[in-house]
């Protein structure tokens, strides 16, 4: 935790899908320079909460403050413009486009010729080449190669590189290491730690509790659309963490353990 003023403050957030109560009065703070692990079973509401933060869903009730200001409009484009980036395993890169084109997708740099906005290919190529080199993509991959040719880990690397390059402030990683080889997973996790150290807020969603216990500064556990635990990672052992998730909440766990 690097500052007292939270970068994202969620207060009493409710979200309904029809009659289904997906998020139940969730309140949580996220700070810049923090690595927060968000865990819980399937259907616990992790991804739903994240989708509110990156503008895909608008909450039914409650408030979201970003950098001290109340968020009133929810749209992915606005979230990206504010510097909130989401990295998911399956989406984020278009297979049919080159790395350079993917890099700037949605905010392409242009050079105006006769007032017509043409893509600035040099800038796109130079900058994305520099980033993929910095983030350790093998040397024979060029920015003009189609994403289709990359492996799963390389894709994640490109996404992370893109997130950093655009001076993002929040990096949300939704199961970023699914289907990756052991080495690739370590590389992606190293990058995430580096970003935290550069002052970004990293929110990391995973099922892999032992992994997140090692990586995270703080762990938030959700269950049935509610936040049931919010603790510093070192205040809780891995076994305790597992017990909380298994039994759904501290009350049960207390009965069980004492």
């Amino acid at each position: 935790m690097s500052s007292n003023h939270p970068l994202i403050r969620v207060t009493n957030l409710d979200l309904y899908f029809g009659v289904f109560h997906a998020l139940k009065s969730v309140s949580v703070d996220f700070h810049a320079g923090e690595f927060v692990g968000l865990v819980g079973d399937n259907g616990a509401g992790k991804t739903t909460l994240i989708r509110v933060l990156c503008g895909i869903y608008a909450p039914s009730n409650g408030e979201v403050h970003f950098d001290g200001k109340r968020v009133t409009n929810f749209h992915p484009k606005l979230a990206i413009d504010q510097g909130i980036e989401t990295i998911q395993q399956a989406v984020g890169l278009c297979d049919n486009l080159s790395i350079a084109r993917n890099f700037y997708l949605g905010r392409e740099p242009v050079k105006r010729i006769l007032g017509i906005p043409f893509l600035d290919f040099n800038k796109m190529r130079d900058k994305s080449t520099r980033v993929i080199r910095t983030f350790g993509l093998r040397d024979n991959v060029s920015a003009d190669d189609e994403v289709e040719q990359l492996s799963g880990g390389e894709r994640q690397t490109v996404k992370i590189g893109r997130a950093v390059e655009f001076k993002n402030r929040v990096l949300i990683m939704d199961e970023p290491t699914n289907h990756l080889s052991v080495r690739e997973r370590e590389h992606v996790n190293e990058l995430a730690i580096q970003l935290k150290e550069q002052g970004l807020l990293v929110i990391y969603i995973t099922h892999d509790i032992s992994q997140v216990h090692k990586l995270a500064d703080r762990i938030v556990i959700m269950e049935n659309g509610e936040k049931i635990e919010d603790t510093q990672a070192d205040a809780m052992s891995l076994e305790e963490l597992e017990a909380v998730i298994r039994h759904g909440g501290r009350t049960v766990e207390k009965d069980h353990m004492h």
Partner: protein
Amino acid sequence: MAAFETRTVAMPTIRKLARGSGVGAIAGVVAMLVAFTLIDFSGWWTIQTLSNVMHFASILALLAMGQALVIISKEIDLSVGSVYGLSGVTFISMQADLGVGGAMIAALIVATLCGLVQALAVVKGGLPSMIVTLGGLFAFRGIIYVWTGGSVRGFPEEARMHWLTRMFGGELFGIEAAFFWMLLVLAVLSLVLWATPFGNRLLATGGDAESAATRGVRTDRVKMGAFVMCSILAGCAGIVTLADQPQTHVTLGELLELESIAAAVIGGCLLSGGRGSLVGAVIGAFIVVSFRYELIALGAPSSWFITFVGIVLIIAVVFNQWLARWAGHNV
């Protein structure tokens, strides 16, 4: 610096070349020209045949380019033949009231509206484009029937001689104006597709709409853009056709949706979206129209033409798909 085990990406040059869309079409056109020359040299390589082929290929190419844009965005437009017909009928019918220029604008407005209505139904209504444009095919054709009541309409002499009519339907250096318009559209659209943000987003929307949306691309607007451009091009094709032969009939443009899809697919557009080529679509149109003239030159009944287009379409789509997979695309 490489963090991951190195896979071989080095591939043979020819395979790299095949990654580009439209290679199949070029191979096809070469094969076709060789075949036609061998079969029937005298019937094919004549000024008359070539000029006819160029003229009608240019008109079909306008439609095929629009279709290609829609296919690249991973949708399909079955209504272009009817939009073509309806714009043409508007152009001819409104001339008496609005003059040639006004009628031309009216025709383009009608085409734009056709595209817009269908795009809204696809994007906002969340319906498959095949169903919506199938509806459009019927509805716009129906409007033609109801409006003209089956009558044939034409231009009076002074409208035929009007400079605007000549500009779209006349000749320049002995070559039909349609050809130059087609080249202009090809150049502009190729730039739009490959060198502007809109083009990048169109390719991204067709390739992976979900990923594009997470990058803040408004995929619904991009798709609407593709549909509207397709309809406007169909309208332009209608105007160019009727400026040359100012006479409408109710069946104007029937089956053109099929020919335009055939041309776009022969030209290397993959229905899985995100990949395609406008040059390929133009070549595809050339192939389709050439077949018609070669069959006529060979003295076959004109109905065989439909059969041949069908065969060429199936061969082209299977071949292009095979080519794309061989080149390493995931389609």
